[in-house]
């Protein structure tokens, strides 16, 4: 068990090191281009050379990478060319905002999809099952770029009950959080629902469930006491892996609703070639994705007695 956790964490660190090297190489392999992006396209060669010398860009590549990684680990991401301040000053408030959005989304996705998934998987092939399955296919087929304008049209302009932007200009407000959350939930819940359904349907075909039914236990008790425990192990993994998808969805949703989150920051940085912000954002995104994946693997082993006791 401990060995398994150790191996999982080890491979996570290895992946992170490779990813960081890739990001570093992609963005900083040629020091000249870094200088151009930092000083702007109208800087002279002389200015760039002075900047490169001052900031240690004349050193060999591996040395620069190690120093870059070291700075990164202590939270020194460099200075943003767009926001004219330390990257960390811009980044952390944005990450916090995205955390709020993601937490709100997860708080809805998890109960909705688990309940729907269990209801559908309980009686495979029934009308409830078909309805829920088709509904979850339909909602996952509407991409965020389409659901955002459609929902905004209905709730902002037809009904006039929600604000159309979520930039928190006058401080935090729940009303502004509703639309982005709705867009993300709508796109994300279908997948988890279908996974829960599949897992539940599989458990319902096992012998111990048949035994429980045949020995005359009330159906409700069979579901709650016997089926759910085993059926909910797989969705746990799926929910954790969903964080990776959420980080993609967050980019579109935040951009659409002018939500000041980290996805919108990454996009803005990419469109403006603000390389230190791009580096910081993508490293954090990958770190969160890889981290949740590791947690999901470890959690799965922990929850599944067949692996835990082997």
């Amino acid at each position: 068990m401990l060995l398994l956790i150790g191996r999982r964490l080890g491979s996570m660190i290895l992946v992170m090191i490779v990813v960081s090297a890739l990001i570093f190489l992609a963005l900083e392999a040629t020091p000249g281009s870094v200088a151009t992006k930092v000083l702007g396209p109208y800087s002279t060669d002389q200015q760039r050379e002075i900047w490169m010398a001052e900031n240690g860009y004349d050193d060999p590549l591996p040395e620069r990478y190690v120093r870059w990684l070291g700075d990164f680990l202590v939270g020194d991401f460099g200075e943003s060319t767009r926001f004219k301040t330390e990257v960390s000053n811009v980044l952390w408030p944005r990450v916090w905002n995205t955390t709020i959005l993601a937490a709100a989304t997860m708080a809805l996705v998890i109960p909705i999809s688990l309940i729907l998934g269990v209801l559908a998987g309980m009686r495979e092939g029934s009308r409830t099952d078909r309805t829920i399955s088709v509904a979850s296919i339909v909602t996952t087929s509407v991409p965020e770029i389409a659901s955002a304008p459609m929902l905004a049209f209905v709730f902002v302009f037809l009904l006039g009950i929600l604000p159309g932007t979520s930039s928190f200009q006058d401080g935090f407000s729940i009303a502004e959080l509703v639309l982005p959350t709705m867009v993300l939930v709508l796109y994300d819940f279908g997948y988890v629902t279908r996974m829960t359904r599949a897992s539940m349907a599989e458990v319902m075909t096992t012998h111990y469930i048949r035994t429980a039914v045949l020995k005359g236990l009330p159906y409700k008790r069979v579901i709650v006491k016997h089926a759910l425990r085993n059926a909910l192990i797989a969705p746990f993994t799926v929910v954790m892996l969903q964080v990776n998808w959420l980080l993609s969805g967050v980019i579109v949703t935040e951009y659409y609703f002018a939500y000041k989150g980290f996805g919108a920051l990454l996009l803005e940085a990419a469109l403006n070639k603000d390389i230190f912000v791009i580096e910081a954002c993508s490293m954090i995104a990958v770190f969160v994705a890889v981290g949740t994946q590791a947690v999901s693997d470890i959690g799965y082993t922990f929850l599944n007695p067949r692996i835990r006791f082997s």
Partner: protein
Amino acid sequence: MTETTLPMPKQPNILARLFKPVLLIRESLVGMIGLALVVFWVLIAIFAPALAPFPPNANLMSTQPPGAEFIASATQMIGMQPASELCNAIEGDPTKVDCGTFWLGTDLTGRDIFSRIIWGARQVLIFAPLATFVAYIVGIPMGLWAGYSRGRIDTVFSFISNVILSFPVLVLYVLVINLIGASAFNIVAAVVFASAPGIFRIVRGLAMDLRAREYVFAAETRGEPLAYILFLEILPNARGPLIVDAMLRLGYVIITIGTLGFLGLGLPPPDPDWGKMIAEGRTFLQVFPWIPLFPCLAISSAVLGFNLLADGLREVSLRD
């Protein structure tokens, strides 16, 4: 399963055998609805030049206000417009000609949305299948090889795919497009780069499962070359899940291409792209809602078609 007895029963030809699960789709209502949607968009894409009443990029603005009404008849002053060869004379008013109807209105620069959606279907249904196909061409051999041979090959390929898959998808696209620039070729390349690891993983899993089958042992015993075992023994038997996965993936690639267009990282203007049309129209959602909403419906229905088709195929393939 047909029993292989001697004398050998006459085998149906290889194409019929390969696509038998695809033909079973008739038995699934959901699958048929999906198929109908897909066929609908494919036909629109093929016949775009005949179906679109206006050239997609033609600026028909001089006679119509920005964002002309939903269903408006286009009339224009003689001699003002490059698109005048589309127009007929109006009896009783010699200064104007009738050019047809904007069924879905026009966008802000006076381009016909109906025609742009039709031409946009062509963009989507060329690039999405192309990118998906190339991703399979890359992912399948790697997956088969790694899953069948295991060992060091497997470790290396799996690690590479783990690294790529550890990026949230859109973060990866933003990084890659930012690095190589947005063009049709680069977008296909980015989709291949981001999708091939997922395909690799699925194929590898299937190959690991199939490598212990008797027919694989038989081929090994006959001394068949590696490529024969991979592509003629293992691959055909893995086709079921792969066809389902390909449909799902196609839907997802359509979303990706649309999203890239929406974020300004997609195909360069002015050619119509659904995602870009949504992006251009979204600021006018209140005044001219049809500008962004029709492309929204177009992309959603196309993706829905592929997803329902995938679900139908999975359903019928589980049945036997």
